C-alpha cells in the first residue's frame, strides 16, 4: 500500500524545548489514522509541519508521495485540512467565506465553484444556511463550515485536528458518519484527537504521541486484540478460584479474570461445578489502557523540581 503521509526523524525545536522529537509517521492509503496524544504532546505542531505551516528543524515530510513544504503548491490542493478549530471572516456569510477560500488557491475551477459549495454544505448539514454572517453562527455551525471548507476540492487526504470540537452528541454522530462515508469513497483520513472514544469508533490505525515522541503506531485491531484471558461475571467470585485452580489471574469484586481464550470452555467448567455465571467475555484491552500503558503522565502537568 502506498504511503499517504510519511515522516522520517521529524524534529521541531523551540529553543531548548523539543516539541516534536524525531517521529516517523506512516499513514497508508485507505487508513483512518487516529493520532492520539495528550494536550501539549506535540500533535498540533506535527499537523502544522505536515501541512507546511511550521518548518521542521530536522527530518522530512512526505505528503502524497511528494516532499513538503517544497511541493506544497502541487500537493496541498489534494488535501483538506481543519487545524485547531475553524476560522472564517465573521462579517461574511458562510457561502461567501467558502467562495473566497476556494478562489484563493489553485485546483478549484471557477465554473464549478457554486455547485461544489452547495454540495459540501449539504454534506456537512448546512444546506439551508441563509445570508447571515458567520459571526452569528453557533460553534457547531462554524465547525461544520470549517469541515465544508476542507471538503471543497474533494481531497484525497483529510487532515483533521479535533473535528468534533464544539459539536453536540448528534452532531458528533453525524460527522462520524460523514467521515466513514468519505472513507468508503476512498478518502484517507488523518484524525488528530485526544478523545479516545472518538478514535476507537472511527480509526483503523493509531499512533500515540507522548512528549514529542511517537510511542506507539499500529493497527487498532491488533492493539485491542484479545489477551488470551476470559472475564467472568459471577456473584460467587470466591468459588471460581476453587474450581479453576491456578488459572485465576485476578479478582475484582464480582469480576474474575481467568486464563483461557475460550469462554465456552470456562463456562462449561464453572456451570458443571454449580458456580452461577452472569456474564462472560474475552478480555480485550481498551484503547485507553493501551494508550495509558504506552504514554506517561499528562504533558500539561507541571511537576515541581526536586
Amino acid at each position, binding site marked *: 500500500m502506498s504511503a499517504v503521509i510519511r515522516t522520517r526523524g521529524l524534529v521541531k525545536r523551540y529553543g531548548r524545548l523539543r516539541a516534536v522529537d524525531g517521529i516517523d509517521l506512516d499513514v497508508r492509503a485507505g487508513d483512518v489514522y487516529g493520532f492520539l496524544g495528550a494536550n501539549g504532546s506535540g500533535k498540533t505542531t506535527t499537523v502544522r509541519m505536515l501541512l507546511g505551516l511550521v*518548518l521542521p528543524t530536522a527530518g522530512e515530510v512526505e505528503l502524497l508521495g511528494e516532499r513538503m513544504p517544497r511541493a506544497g503548491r502541487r500537493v496541498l490542493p489534494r488535501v483538506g485540512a481543519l*487545524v485547531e478549530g475553524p476560522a472564517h471572516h465573521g462579517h*461574511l456569510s458562510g457561502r461567501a467565506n467558502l467562495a473566497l477560500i476556494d478562489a484563493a*488557491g489553485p485546483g478549484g475551477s471557477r465554473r464549478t465553484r457554486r455547485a461544489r459549495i452547495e454540495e459540501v454544505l449539504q454534506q456537512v448539514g448546512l444546506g439551508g444556511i441563509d445570508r447571515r454572517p458567520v459571526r452569528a453562527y453557533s460553534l457547531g455551525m462554524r465547525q461544520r463550515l470549517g469541515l465544508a471548507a476542507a471538503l471543497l476540492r474533494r481531497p484525497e487526504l483529510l487532515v483533521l485536528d479535533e473535528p468534533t470540537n464544539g459539536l453536540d452528541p448528534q452532531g458528533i454522530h453525524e460527522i462520524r458518519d460523514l467521515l466513514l462515508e468519505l472513507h468508503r469513497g476512498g478518502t484517507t483520513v488523518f484524525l488528530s484527537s485526544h478523545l479516545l472514544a472518538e478514535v476507537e469508533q472511527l480509526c483503523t490505525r493509531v499512533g500515540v504521541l507522548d512528549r514529542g515522541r511517537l510511542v506507539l503506531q499500529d493497527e487498532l485491531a491488533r492493539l485491542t486484540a484479545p489477551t488470551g484471558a476470559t472475564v467472568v461475571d459471577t456473584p460467587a467470585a470466591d468459588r471460581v478460584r476453587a474450581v479453576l485452580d491456578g488459572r485465576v489471574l485476578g479478582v475484582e469484586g464480582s469480576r474474575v479474570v481467568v486464563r483461557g481464550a475460550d469462554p465456552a470452555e470456562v463456562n462449561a467448567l464453572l456451570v458443571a461445578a454449580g458456580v452461577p455465571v452472569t456474564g462472560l467475555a474475552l478480555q480485550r484491552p481498551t484503547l485507553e489502557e493501551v494508550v495509558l500503558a504506552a504514554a506517561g503522565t499528562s504533558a500539561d502537568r507541571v511537576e515541581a523540581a526536586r
Partner: protein
Amino acid sequence: MIGVELRKLFRRPRTWVTIAVLNALPVLVAVLVQLTDLAPRPGEGPPFLSAVLTNGALFPLAALAIVLPLFLPIAVAVVAGDAVAGEAQAGTLRYLLVRPAGRTRLLVAKLVAVIAFVLVTVLVVAGVGYVVGTTLFDAQPVGGGTSVSGTSLSQQELAGRSLMAIGYVTVSMLGVAAFGLFFSTLTDSPLAAALGALAVLVTSSLLFTLDAASPIAPYLPTRYWLAFVDLFRDPILWRDVVRGLALQGVYVGVLLAAAWANFTTKDVTS
C-alpha cells in the same frame, strides 16, 4: 488571489468607514472657512488653504494637505498592519496557506490591496475635496489658478499638477504601507503592527523638528511628504519631489524585501 484580497478589503464595512471619517475633517474645515470667511493667511496653516477662498479648485490639495500629516498615515498604517496580522489573529491565515495560497503570492496580493486602498483613499479625498471646494467657494473656470509663486496657471496645468500631487502623496503613503506590512509579518496582533508603523512616523516627525537630528533628517521617511507643494511653484521645484520619491522607493524596497524574507521562512502558529 489579488482579486480575493481586493474583494475582502472593499467588502469590509470598516474600510469605507475609515475613508468616510478621513473625509470628514477636510469637509469640516471647508465649512468653517466658508462660514467665517477666515482663511489662514498665506504661509500659515495647511498649505493651499489660504488660496481656497479665491479659488475653490485648489481645495482638493488643501484637503490632502490637511489629512496628510496624521489622518491619512493612521488609516494606511491600520490597513497595512492588519494585512497579515489580521488574518493571523482571526486564524484565517493558516487556512489561506493550507489552501495553498503561497506565501509570496499572498504577500503580493496583500501589498496590491493596500496600494489599492491608498489610491482609492487619496482619490476619494481629492474628489470630495473638489466637490466641496467648487460648491462652497468660487472656482475660477477660465483664468486657471495661481501658483504658490504668484504666477497664474492654466486650467490644464492645474489639473496636471494636481494629478502629479495625488500620485506623489500616494507614493509617500506607500512608505507607511511598507512599514505596516513589514510589522504585520512580525506579529500576530494587527494593533501592534499598526502602532509600530505609527511609532516610526511619530519618531520621524519629531526628529525632523529637532536641530540635533539634522544630519539624519534627509533620510527620515516623513521628510519630503509635503514636497508636493513644490509641484505648484512656477517653475516646478523638482529637487525635493525627486528626493522624496527616491527615499520612499528605498524604504518600500528594503521593507518589502524584509517582509518577504520574514514571512516566507516563518512558522505560522496562529
